[in-house]
């Protein structure tokens, strides 16, 4: 019999299900969280706060793309539509009926999840390029519809009246960016914690299986289409949360701003640069690209928008050719294996 000695099996059972990260990594993680918590008090400039807020926001967006594309293997080019839905849902509820954006956040997430299901059920049958193109066209169709939809402001969008009395109800802060900083930090932490949980859950492991070998996944009883739809719903809801936050941050939204194709592109670029399918890749990508674009906008003035995109384009091209699995993947794999061997 080819059975291994029971002692080896007992020993293997004694391992934790999820190997603990190396201590150095844990310390670094805690240090990072602490540093981010005190950051606004060390660097007091409003602009540095703005850059950090943008990093948090875009890390959420990149993570949202990561859930559908990195984890379940379906490349979405229409993520902006969920961003826009999130922004519009909360802004609309607040302006029309005075409903707090906190509730708007949840409504936007729910609407996005439903729209993701409605889009995903027919289109997630399409593999690879077909899904990418379908989502690209659906995303742009949403932009066109919102540009023409009078009831919600058409092309001029929604302007949220300034309100200073109850900042935590109306979720507007005018004197300082600090609340926005911690809000975006918190949202980002929740998004990443969600994906961390997802990766350790039955659903998450099955998604990876579906991504890697759909037929083998099916042979184990996994309903491929259903799992992808669920992933798309989670991804959509996450993007919507980012959209609501953005709407509250800028207080003026219009279709070209929140449904723009550039948003879908940014989410994708950051995740791919950092490492699609990894937990921290999207954060790394955002942390690299956002300062690049925010500071180039200062250095190069008005045309800065083109310089940063030019650099993005070249960067992503180089990544695809030389390290298609992203910048983070080398580090994480090494850490992970070392962690497992230190048991």
């Amino acid at each position, binding site marked *: 019999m080819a*059975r291994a000695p029971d002692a080896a099996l007992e020993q293997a059972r004694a391992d934790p299900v999820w190997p603990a990260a190396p201590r150095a990594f844990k310390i670094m993680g805690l240090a990072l969280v602490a540093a981010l918590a005190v950051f606004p008090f060390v660097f007091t400039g409003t602009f540095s706060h703005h850059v950090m807020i943008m990093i948090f926001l875009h890390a959420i967006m990149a993570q949202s793309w990561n859930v559908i594309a990195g984890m379940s293997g379906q490349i979405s080019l229409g993520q902006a539509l969920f961003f826009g839905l999130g922004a519009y849902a909360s802004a609309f509820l607040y302006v029309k009926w005075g409903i707090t954006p906190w509730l708007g956040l949840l409504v936007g997430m729910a609407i996005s999840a439903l729209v993701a299901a409605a889009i995903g059920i027919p289109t997630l049958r399409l593999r690879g390029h077909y899904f990418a193109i379908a989502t690209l066209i659906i995303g742009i169709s949403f932009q066109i519809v919102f540009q023409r939809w009078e009831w919600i402001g058409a092309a001029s969008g929604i302007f949220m009246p300034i309100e200073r009395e109850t900042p935590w109800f109306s979720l507007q802060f005018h004197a300082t960016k600090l609340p926005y900083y911690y809000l975006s930090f918190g949202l980002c932490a929740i998004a990443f914690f969600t994906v961390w949980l997802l990766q350790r859950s039955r659903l998450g*492991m*099955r998604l*990876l299986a579906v991504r890697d070998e759909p*037929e*083998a996944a099916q*042979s*184990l*009883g996994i309903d491929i289409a259903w799992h992808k739809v669920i992933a798309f719903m989670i991804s959509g809801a996450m993007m919507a949360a980012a959209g609501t936050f953005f709407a509250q941050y800028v207080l003026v939204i219009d279709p070209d701003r929140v449904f723009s194709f550039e948003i879908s592109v940014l989410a994708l670029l950051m995740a791919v640069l950092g490492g699609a*399918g990894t937990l921290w890749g999207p954060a790394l990508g955002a942390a690299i690209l956002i300062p690049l674009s925010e500071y180039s906008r200062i250095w190069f003035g008005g045309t800065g928008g083109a310089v940063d995109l030019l650099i993005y384009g070249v960067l992503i091209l180089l990544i695809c050719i030389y390290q298609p699995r992203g910048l983070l993947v080398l580090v994480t794999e090494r850490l992970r294996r070392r962690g497992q061997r230190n048991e």
Partner: protein
Amino acid sequence: MSELLRVEGLSKRFGGVTANEDISFDVRKGEILGVIGPNGAGKSTLFDLITGFQQADSGTVILDGRDITGLRPDRIARMGVGRTFQKLKPFPDLTLLENVMVGALSRTANMHEARDLALEAISFVDLLDKRYAFARELSTGQRKRLEMARAVASGPRLLLMDEVTGGVDQKTIPGLIDLVFALRESGITVLTIEHNMQVMMQVSDRILALQSGKRIAFAKPDEVRKDPLVVDAYLGTVDAA
């Protein structure tokens, strides 16, 4: 022994090529049934038809009294039919343990339980020391064992194995044969495709022989060995070699 699977008049054509034509047989609970035939005889197509990866043009597949013809592969899998693939399909970016856990998660939603079930299955195929290796780093033989462990971990009643010993080196074949016997001992009914005739004669309780998509024999190994059609189609060439 009672019947677990019944296949009746299964046919499948791809364009002008007949892959399976009017194939009927049954699999009894607890037996090891071997499917033999030269390349292109339609063995893998037969597996695909039973497990739902291809749709039959006609015929029926009955599992434990229930008609499962035309159901989606994942539904058939959830009814207790596991399979391995001739062209191996491990999840390359997952570790061996995670690969097998995905199988075990079909039986339980609890990660701890799934891990323990997976470890048992990995221990069963004797790969415990490789459990943290990524699937893409394993050798072909190890990946065969991975697929077997993954399928076993999903708790099938019937396991379809495509080419257990194909493409692995001679030394590991006895170990793989032991595994097939051990599977049966653990209560799993086995339907297996093999190229290696000696292996097949040794492990099978009954043998289904195919040629050009048609059934040419269905009997005990000793009888199949003597069957003139089988000798003609297949054994003769092997003996001559």
